[in-house]
């Protein structure tokens, strides 16, 4: 069916029970929806087996008319998956295994007794928290880009429409001029969520106003692109949005295309995201079927379609001009700006490029207005930001928080602090382009300017928490090894410079560092930042520069004392066995991969230092705290 604007409302009415049950407002006839998380994290923890078991048990008890099983995208609380949420009551079940399901179904749905042992507990001895909204992980979050995460079936366009989807598109196409849409986005204060934070409305306006006349006198085509080439280590914001709510991205792009005057769009997505690709392809087909993509959308004069293009895994393609080169079939190399893509982008035509999260914010701004959006956040950074919270933190997962929230709130209130009672050391934002923020700056508000001041960047939303066991020199070495590996090699400072920085850092972590190396790294890093061609090179030294700025003592310990304070750098540590604690259980000797541990049963064991490869196996298998690292 090809929808008209009024059809959007009638689909919404038809599926009114979906929004009633999911929102918990106005409950429909005792019906229940079981929302099974099928994000990549939960799927890899066998949530699809949990789903199969649920389906079988529901059938067995003949409950299928009352209870519906819905597969959703990422719920966000990845650390505790597989997750099932019972709606409309908002009961949150976690860490489920298929074996738990028969008992769960019987107790909860036949006997009316929700199962406490499958609920979330803040601590081992604390009472369970039954409702999802009361769990601290969700408490401080505010969802805009992820508004539908975990509550919509990403494979159903009807559910998306039922929950308010495509209303913003209908509003933009029938009630707003192209200029009004751009004004609304400008007034909202939305800035690019891909990293640099350029004002989105302004970017759209440049592209809309770009005048390129073709040979023959007609105006040139314009293009829009969605950058879904998410490449930062530990980051999965964009993947989750596409997996959990693909239509939100399409609706944002449709509104942008209308405002800019583009008739074709591209989504450039990593080929390593198979589930996202599958859901995206399906969403595109559904949107075409409903007349939301293609010719004369919603019966108006506006026509637009989208092509999906798969990236081949080059990090530099996240840089917009490289991405455009790759789309054109050329080498993925950045081009010097100006000219900007708004003037000369894909095939030399005016092109607007935004990332997934930016596009996903757009429908909400059109629906609820710029004033509402700009009331959230700080003076210069409006709205919310999605982060993937990973590393040494209890509640790993996907979080969306209002701008201006502090790092401390994210790591400790939402993230639940550091596992194992260890001490927080730093949080890395912005991936390989960002920096490490130390404990003294944990009260830094999350906004574009404050993070730059701290030496990091907002970036696309990776947030890696590190504790006392992380060596900051090694962290810097890791990130620079990533950027030098991913450097395209076009410009001299990034190609040669990051390689030299890596060599110096490898010297330091292997005990060959020299006096003056810190100053050398600082100077070289500044030069590279200043002279490199694109964002990759301009930001590559950041992890090194911030770790020097905040953890200089660790660098000095490596260089002067040939000591790794976190006991990570292999060349600078030795493993030995404490004769007092050793019980002679032989666990270490049995597990040593190079058989360099000797000792009789019930006698103290000894490590042959010459043959030890410092793999740490003995340390991790010892139950008596007898292996020492010095």
């Amino acid at each position: 069916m090809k929808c008209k604007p009024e059809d959007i409302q009638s689909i919404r009415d038809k599926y009114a029970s979906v929004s009633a049950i999911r929102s918990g407002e106005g409950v429909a006839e005792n019906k229940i929806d079981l929302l099974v998380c099928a994000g990549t994290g939960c799927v890899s923890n066998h949530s699809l087996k949990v789903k199969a078991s649920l389906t079988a048990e529901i059938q067995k008890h003949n409950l299928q008319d009352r209870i519906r099983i819905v597969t959703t995208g990422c719920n966000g609380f990845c650390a505790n998956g597989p997750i099932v949420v019972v709606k409309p009551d908002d009961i949150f079940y976690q860490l489920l295994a298929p074996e738990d399901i028969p008992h769960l179904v019987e107790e909860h749905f036949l006997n009316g007794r929700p199962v406490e042992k499958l609920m979330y507990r803040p601590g081992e001895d604390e009472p369970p928290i039954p409702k999802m909204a009361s769990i601290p992980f969700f408490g401080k979050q505010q969802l805009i880009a992820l508004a539908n995460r975990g509550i919509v079936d990403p494979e159903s366009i009807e559910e998306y429409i039922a929950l308010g989807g495509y209303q913003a598109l209908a509003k933009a196409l029938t009630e707003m001029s192209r200029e009004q849409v751009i004004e609304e986005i400008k007034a909202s204060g939305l800035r690019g969520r891909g990293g640099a934070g350029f004002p989105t409305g302004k970017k759209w306006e440049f592209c809309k106003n770009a005048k390129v006349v073709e040979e023959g006198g007609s105006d040139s085509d314009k293009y829009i692109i969605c950058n879904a080439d998410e490449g930062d280590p530990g980051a999965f914001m964009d993947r989750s949005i596409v997996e959990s709510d693909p239509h939100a991205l399409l609706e944002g792009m449709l509104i942008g295309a209308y405002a800019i005057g583009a008739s074709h769009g591209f989504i450039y997505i990593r080929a390593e995201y198979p589930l996202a690709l599958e859901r995206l392809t399906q969403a595109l087909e559904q949107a075409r079927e409903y007349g939301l993509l293609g010719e004369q959308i919603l019966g108006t004069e506006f026509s637009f379609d989208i092509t999906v293009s798969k990236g081949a895994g080059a990090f530099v393609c996240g840089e917009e001009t490289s991405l455009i080169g790759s789309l054109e079939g050329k080498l993925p190399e950045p081009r010097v700006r100006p000219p900007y893509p708004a003037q000369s982008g894909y095939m030399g035509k005016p092109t607007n490029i935004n990332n997934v999260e930016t596009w996903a914010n757009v429908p909400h701004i059109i629906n609820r207005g710029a004033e509402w959006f700009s009331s959230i956040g700080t003076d210069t950074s409006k709205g919310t930001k999605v982060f993937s919270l990973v590393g040494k933190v209890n509640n790993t997962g996907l979080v969306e928080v209002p701008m201006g929230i502090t790092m401390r709130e994210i790591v400790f209130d939402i993230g639940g602090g550091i596992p194992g009672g260890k001490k927080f050391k730093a949080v890395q934002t912005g991936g390989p382009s960002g920096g490490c923020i130390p404990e003294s700056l944990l009260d830094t508000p999350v906004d574009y300017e404050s993070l730059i001041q701290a030496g990091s960047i907002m970036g696309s939303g990776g947030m890696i928490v590190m504790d006392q066991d992380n060596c900051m020199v090694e962290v810097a070495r890791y990130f620079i090894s990533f950027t030098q590996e991913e450097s395209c090699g076009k410009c001299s400072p990034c190609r040669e410079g990051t390689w030299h920085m890596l060599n110096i850092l490898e010297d330091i972590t292997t005990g060959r560092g020299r006096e003056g190396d810190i100053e050398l790294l600082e100077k070289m890093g500044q030069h590279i930042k200043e002279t490199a061609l694109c964002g990759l090179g301009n930001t590559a030294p950041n992890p090194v520069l911030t770790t020097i700025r905040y953890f200089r003592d660790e660098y000095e310990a490596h260089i002067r004392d040939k000591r790794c304070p976190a006991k990570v750098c292999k060349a600078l540590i030795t493993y030995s066995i404490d004769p007092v604690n050793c019980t002679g259980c032989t666990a270490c000797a049995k597990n040593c991969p190079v058989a360099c541990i000797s000792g009789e049963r019930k006698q103290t064991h000894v490590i042959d230092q010459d043959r030890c490869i410092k793999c740490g196996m003995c340390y991790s298998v010892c139950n008596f705290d007898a292996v020492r690292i010095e």
Partner: protein
Amino acid sequence: MARISIDGKNLEFEQPLTILEAAKKLQIKIPTLCYNEHLVPYGGCRICLVEATTQTAPGRSRLVPACTAPAEDGMVVTTDSQRVQDSRRFIIELLLSRCPESQVIRDMAAEMGVDPDGQNLDVVGQYLLKRAPRREATNCILCGLCVRVCQQIPERYALSLKERGIHRKVTPPFEKVAESCIGCGSCAYVCPTKTITIEEA
């Protein structure tokens, strides 16, 4: 007519024009390596960086490659500020570290006050020219001129860039003798370090 000021000299010009072209008209010399006036500018080697201030952001100067940056009305450009000199020195030291035997690079370094044999160097220069690990000897600075000329002038595509980052190199496609090569010699002609030579068949 637009107006640009380079090192205090004014030029009235018609757009489009790059800063490098404008400087040429004013007889101001800016060093280049990956530039050739007959090819699409590349902006890769970074030796032609200059400091430019535009009318839209008067208080903020940026380093831009003169070969690709469009000259804008009201732009003020400096080609020899301390910032420019420091940046160029860094670039030439990187290239010298890569190609210590290239006479072209050695001469250019000497012109910029960098002693290729390692006197009067700062901490970065000391590292790059004396301590940094050496790779396989080459005079190729990966400016890509040979690849680009082959694509853009005879349109033979007989050369391409392989791998990325530090491993990047120029080779014929699939590292086989390119059937499309017509032996025109353009690649050897444009090579700034004379790394490509023509052999008589």
